């Protein structure tokens, strides 16, 4: 993490950065004093609750507490797995062991259950921040309560997994805007300095007219996307949540969880969302795994002006791997990001050949860490009471990603309009789940779950 970086260069960058945000912080303190309704806390401390204590939630909490523009502390945590919560609490405490008061989550503010999110948010005061980092299926449920409580929100991507919940979360967001809540969505690429400069350069015409975009996340098995049979004695519901990348109702599967960054940053460079997509994919190596994912996806999106965006996703071991995004224009090409999310190492080449000799521009290294920047930006907006709401953008990135997945899973061309008006909701009534509820998805007698059958099941992604 950049805030723990040891290189002299990146320390400089970090220091400059703190200096820059420090100035903002001074202004922010003033703003907060002048407008106490923005943040009710008299001591100007922002309190944070973490809902969803997996790896990403824990990382987000560490980034939150690392924002250096005023007092901030973690005060409550929620998860459905006690072990997750315990481990996360330990890791976060450990990361801040030298900074007293940053982590203040005694046992009575550690909540475990499906309604734990409410209890954790009840600890907060209006204007505090809740981190929503559970599987995305629960996002709209938790967001509703956060709005009710007047909380600012950081929600992890994706924010939805199907049409109905996308429409719902955009509707909910109107209330968040009315209440002047600041809401960040964890599409951190948008906060990356390199990509921001690249965006300006592309919009300024440096690669000419964009005529093709492409992105890849092709690697071996990732996360819990491939999961084996449910162990005896484990609850069906808890097993699926623990392996949430394997089940479409929870996460949208590997496509939603892994391809969304590439799809979002590539659409960003085009400064538009595509209007339709067709796609293919298949299951070749699932073996004993019972999850619903394909192990390859190839998507061709089309924008309103006819420009194509190609997306490749693969989780097969032993194949050529690539995790990068590109934009091709009439005058040159841009590497939007290279080899993973960060550092982006964004650059522009003259012509279409990415050769050092053709390099026209590249962002200097090292880059500030966008996982930290997205938090610096959110907290600064809260302290300065600036309008700050990324939900609509996050919902669009989510549904555009789901649209590609649905095209592959049904074997049909899917338009954005069709996707938005699609009535099939993967997990209706998810807000009523309890520890004893049956899982929204049930395995057959053979222990296998329903999977997509392209060309056979066309109106929804699987029959349940």
């Amino acid at each position, binding site marked *: 993490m950049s805030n723990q970086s040891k290189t002299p260069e990146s320390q400089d960058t970090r220091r400059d950065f703190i200096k820059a945000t420090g100035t903002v912080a001074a202004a922010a303190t003033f703003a907060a004093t002048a407008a106490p309704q923005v943040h009710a806390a008299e001591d100007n401390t922002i309190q944070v609750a973490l809902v969803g204590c997996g790896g990403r939630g824990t990382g987000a909490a560490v980034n939150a507490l690392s924002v250096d523009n005023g007092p901030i502390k973690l005060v409550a945590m929620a998860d459905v797995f006690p072990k997750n919560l315990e481990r996360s609490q330990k890791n976060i405490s450990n990361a801040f062991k030298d900074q007293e008061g940053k982590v203040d989550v005694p046992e009575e503010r550690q909540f475990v259950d499906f309604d734990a999110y409410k209890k954790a948010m009840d600890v907060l005061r209006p204007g505090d921040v809740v981190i929503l980092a559970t599987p995305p299926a629960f996002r709209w449920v938790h967001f509703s309560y956060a709005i009710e409580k007047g909380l600012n929100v950081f929600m992890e991507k994706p924010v939805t997994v199907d049409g109905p919940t996308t429409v719902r979360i955009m509707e909910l967001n109107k209330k968040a805007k009315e209440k002047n809540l600041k809401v960040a969505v964890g599409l951190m690429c948008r906060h990356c300095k390199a990509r921001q400069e690249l965006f300006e350069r592309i919009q300024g015409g440096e690669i000419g007219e964009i005529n093709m975009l492409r992105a890849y996340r092709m690697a071996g098995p990732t996360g819990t996307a491939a999961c084996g049979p449910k162990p005896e004695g484990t609850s069906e519901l808890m097993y699926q949540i623990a392996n949430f990348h394997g089940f479409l109702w929870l996460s949208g599967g590997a496509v939603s969880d892994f391809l969304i960054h590439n799809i979002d940053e590539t659409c960003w460079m085009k400064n538009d969302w595509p209007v339709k997509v067709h796609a293919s994919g298949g299951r070749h190596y699932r073996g004993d795994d019972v999850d619903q994912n394909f192990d390859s996806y190839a998507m061709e999106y089309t924008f309103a002006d006819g420009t194509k965006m190609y997306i490749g996703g693969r989780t097969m071991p032993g194949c050529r*791997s690539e995790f990068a995004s590109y934009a091709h224009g009439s005058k040159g090409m841009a590497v939007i990001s290279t080899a993973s999310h960060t550092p982006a190492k964004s650059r522009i080449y003259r012509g279409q050949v990415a050769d050092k000799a053709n390099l026209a521009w590249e962002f200097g290294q090292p880059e500030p860490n966008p996982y930290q920047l997205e938090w610096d930006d959110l907290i600064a907006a809260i302290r300065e009471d600036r309008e700050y709401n990324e939900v609509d953008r996050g919902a669009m990135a989510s549904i555009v990603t789901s649209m590609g997945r649905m095209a592959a899973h049904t074997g049909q061309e899917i338009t954005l309009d069709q996707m938005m008006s699609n009535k099939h909701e993967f997990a209706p009534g998810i807000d009523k789940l309890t520890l004893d509820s049956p899982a929204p998805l049930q395995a057959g007698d053979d222990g296998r779950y329903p999977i997509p059958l392209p060309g056979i099941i066309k109106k929804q992604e699987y029959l349940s």
Partner: protein
Amino acid sequence: MKMQRLLGSLICCSFLAAGATAADPVPPLDLPESQANSAAEMKPYEEVIEHTDATIEMLPIPGGVFTMGTPDTEQGRDDSEGPLHQVEVSPFWMGKYEITWEQYEIWGDELDTIRRRLLKSKETPRDAVVDGFTRPTEPYTDMTFGMGSGRHPAICMTQHAARTYCQWLSAKTGRYYRLPTEAEWEYACRAGTNTAYSFGDDPEMLDDYAWYGENTNDQYEPVGQKKPNPWGLYDMHGNVSEWVLDQYLPDFFKTSAKLNPLAIPKVLFPRVVRGGGWDNDPELLRSGARIASSEEWKEQDPQLPQSIWYHTDALSVGFRIVRPLTVPSEKERAEFWENTQPEQLDPPEGE
């Protein structure tokens, strides 16, 4: 001939692969060319990785005495490269090339096991040992960083991962493989020379022998494209730096043993890589140059706690393997070759 092979197998059997137990000896894969009882009998051979298409070419390196370190007069020299001292190393085989992705990913991705199951291949006696062997957790990202797989060198692994790969390979083949010691590495790199590089002192000639900062397109290249050193080893200079077993001690050469020296690691950082990589300047590619690993090599790791298997910022660090002619006993291995601190353990599985 048949009898000889059988005898060879039996001899090798007594030198157990990592993972096997004394009560349960596992016969090595039968490769006649790989067998030798003395330095004179050592031949080049291709190690076979069962249930895959991959092999690893090994070259015999005769033991001998050499002058380790660099003279005060060498351009770009660091004080830690001295004093010059005489070191004897015992005979070993060394990988002709750096370990490539196609050889490395078999371990990480269990490609051998998957293929064996898909093709319903017959299990070998070694498979039972290998099936239970430690493999790394799934990487967080594309560990080739977009620079190519196949015959490109594997990179960005921790020293622990490189060492565990060797242990897996030992179990897989029934022959004992490990990382070279720093002394073995320098001895093999110099290949009888005492100049700055194994081809002389002139960095201008590097282009014929090495991929480095001046002639790469900001990335590594497939192994074996440049000229080898006098003993037939490729990419000892450049392409990727190579892990050795030693702790990086700046003054180690003042006190190190005369025969097969090794600085047994007691801390995670710094340890030694040798040979320089695609992003280095000529001076770090010298036969005697020592590079120290650093915590910065994990700078971008977004996980908490950080992975014991992957670096995220060591894009020009890989390794090559050796196989000593005389296989150490389990006791020797435990006390010497594998006695490394701190112990590396994966955090418990999350939910």
